């Protein structure tokens, strides 16, 4: 039983580290994990869930704004990118945040094609992250169900 827990913990640790190494997550995710404890074991999952809902909503509204080439509301798109950049930064979603930086640049020069490319990329990145984090939370759950504790992982 103990080795099962140890194995799961090892898996969890390696997976989390790989997410940082591949640039999916940054230090702010570590900060969020610090705020989670036995009393609030789902805090991180809840925050990222809100983030993914936010992504979906913002991407939809920006897509509508970019739809007709002759009538693009760049102000609205810029506002959406700003919000997305802010919330991705708050949860440590590094790749999503980085796409937002390029996205903002396209907005500033009113480059509709560039905006559409960034929109597609941001959609891809948030969905990818969602899958990765779901796998991570599943591992967490397995550890807890096996009677183990979630390891503190040091990212340096």
């Amino acid at each position, binding site marked *: 039983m103990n080795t099962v827990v140890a194995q799961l913990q090892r898996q969890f640790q390696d997976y989390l580290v790989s997410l940082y190494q591949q640039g999916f997550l940054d230090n702010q995710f570590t900060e969020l994990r610090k705020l989670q404890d036995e009393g609030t074991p789902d805090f991180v999952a809840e925050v990222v869930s809100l983030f993914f809902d936010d992504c979906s909503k913002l991407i939809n509204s920006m897509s509508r704004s970019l739809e007709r080439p002759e009538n693009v509301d760049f102000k609205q798109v810029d506002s959406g990118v700003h919000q997305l950049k802010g*919330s991705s930064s*708050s949860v440590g979603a590094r790749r999503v945040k980085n796409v937002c930086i390029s996205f903002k640049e396209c907005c500033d020069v009113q480059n509709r094609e560039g905006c559409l490319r960034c929109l597609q990329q941001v959609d891809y990145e948030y969905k990818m992250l969602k899958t990765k984090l779901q796998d991570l939370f599943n591992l967490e759950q397995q550890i807890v169900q096996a009677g183990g504790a979630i390891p503190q992982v040091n990212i340096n």
Partner: protein
Amino acid sequence: MALGDLSSSSTSELHVLAVDDSIVDRKVIERLLRISACKVTTVESGTRALQYLGLDGDKGSSGLKDLKVNLIVTDYSMPGLTGYELLKKIKESSAFREIPVVIMSSENIQPRIEQCMTEGAEDFLLKPVKLADVKRLKELIMRGGEAEQEKTSNLISSPKRILQNNIFFFFIIFFIITIIVIFIV
């Protein structure tokens, strides 16, 4: 009035009003503050913040809050009322201008920071906000509260001290006169 409130809250928890239009940021700041042993109320706009404080001109809404607010933490970029405009409204109000206001922003724009500090902001936090930022902030506010308390207690006791000094003075005079009288006799 504000000083009195600070003295009662320095022994108990700070009540923080957090203002942010982002639901993600509201959840994070709420947790950061709760973990730092603060009571938290979150609202999603400057307008709602003013309503909560009872500053929106609608007299009926001032009964909404059940706890005195000791600190306001607000995002800068919000639709409608910005954090800066909210700061101004709070500092313009005689009832609430003593409440420290902290501005948060994801953008490190020096003129913006200066503008807020000039208007009376207590501090300016760069997002994303971390636990260390909130802990430092709390210490700042609590120390400010204690300093206010000391000032208040000094003000209260100085009339007493003046009286005590006077009484002491009179005793000296009386004693000297007694000595002189004894000497004469």
